[in-house]
């Protein structure tokens, strides 16, 4: 195990100064997620325009450095993408955290992929995987807009 791999500079920086930590005005999709184990929670807001492009995405909530950084990086990378592209990125990220050594999508630029890969350190910390994935699962729920509250225990 290696703390340096878990707490990389980018993670610490995003954890300290999370991007898009606010509430999107005129959002048209949103969902809440929580981690009952630790009480962490996140609320993701999304504005999809008529061309089904993510015009804005933001989040509110509190959590550990990993979960804040993950939500921060996620919102940064998803903004401006189409909903299909967003779905592909989400699936790719969750697949990488779960088992894949690399990201496979061709949507993100290399340096964005590098940023995302910084979160791969959690793979060595099974109890922390949920911290990294909560906001992503919540985003899925928001996009499907089924209003279902996500909990990491499901």
């Amino acid at each position, binding site marked *: 195990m290696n703390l340096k791999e878990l707490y990389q500079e980018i993670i610490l920086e995003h954890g300290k100064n999370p991007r898009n930590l606010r509430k999107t005005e005129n959002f048209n999709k949103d969902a809440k997620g929580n981690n009952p184990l630790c009480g962490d929670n996140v609320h993701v807001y999304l504005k999809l325009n008529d061309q089904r492009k993510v015009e804005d995405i933001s989040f509110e909530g509190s959590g550990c*450095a990993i979960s804040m950084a993950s939500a921060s990086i996620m919102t940064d990378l998803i903004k401006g993408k189409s909903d299909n592209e967003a779905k592909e990125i989400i699936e790719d990220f969750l697949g990488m955290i779960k088992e894949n050594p690399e990201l496979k999508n061709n949507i993100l630029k290399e340096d964005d992929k590098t940023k995302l890969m910084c979160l791969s350190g959690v793979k060595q910390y099974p109890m922390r995987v949920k911290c990294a994935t909560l906001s992503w699962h919540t985003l899925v729920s928001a996009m499907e807009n089924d209003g279902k509250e996500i909990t990491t225990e499901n």
Partner: protein
Amino acid sequence: MNINNIRKEFPIFDEKIQNNDLVYLDSANSSQKPKVVLDRINDFYSKQFSNVGRSIHYLAVAATNLYENTRTSVQKYINAKDKNEIVFTKGATEALNLVANTLGQAILEPNDEILITELEHHSNYVPWHFLRKSKNIKIKFAEINEDGDIPIENIEKEITDKTKVIAITHLSNVTGAVLPIKEITQLAHSKGIVVVVDGCQGGPHLKLDMQDLGCDFYAISCHKMYGPTGLGVLYGKKKWLEQLPPYQGGGGMINEVKKDRISYGELPNKYEAGTMATAQVIAFDQSIKFLESIGIDNVIKHEKELIEYGQEILKKNNSVKLIGNPKERGGVLSFTVEGVHPHDIATILDETGVAIRAGHHCCQILHDKLGIPASARASLGVYNTKDDLDKLNEGINNCKKIFDL
């Protein structure tokens, strides 16, 4: 009391945990087990095993006697009047569910009030919450003061002529506050209110004397008292256990079963339906002997020294904020570190073998009140040393370094 000898009784301290010596500061969650307890489980299964209370062959009778011996040991240890006031359960959680459920059936009417506190663990809230739905009873919360204590006035304030039960923790698993159960019980009884105590943290850290406390029910978690998992104890005054209905139905708890009628067994069988955690009960006798061999007064003295030392070093560490400053604190130091989330603290400490807990510790009401989603908690057992607390402090400093604070 010789701490080195005590530590030697716990085999886990001979293990390397991810190449580190173990600094175990999570005993409020569950304590480590002394060798005598582990050996007893193994011995019982290897040499003496049989189910209890059913067959009449030699092993069955011997096992039943061993099982009942533990009941007598517990009775003596907590100074209960009668051995039938001791009921074994699968944990304190089940003990509290048993009380809430049966009191709910027997004495509670719609609009009656249960008074609990903001310190309660979910297992002393959720079972009462069920009665909101099924019986339309109300739950009130006695508030903590700024020290994380519940002064008796805060209890008294919430009592109305509808209050039927006060369900309250003996020792908070977050702030460490020791509550004045004796005084609360006197107050409650003067108004005809039943007192149920969540004694999970009282069990390992305080002297247990049911005659002195006077409460009607007291729930104990054996796995926090150097005993096996899967076992709890419910102490209940005989007049209550006799009067209340059974909780679970099945073998062992009956007297006579006919197609048109069933009568229930006497205490304590009435509340011990099905095959019980036999080996755990028998091994728990060793946990009590272990505690008695040290002497609870020595345990209290040792842990008090550690708590004072822990408070001292953590108060000196700027950016650490201790949660609560109760008049009497037992066994628990919860804290936050400015700029580092408790989960990150726990992960970083773990890297050097320091095991703490992070989260809301099953006390979400309390954390909401404190305005924090989570806290870090170092909790003590009889095997801890000042050195353990120094390592905790070093770990916190390491967090600050990683987070550049």
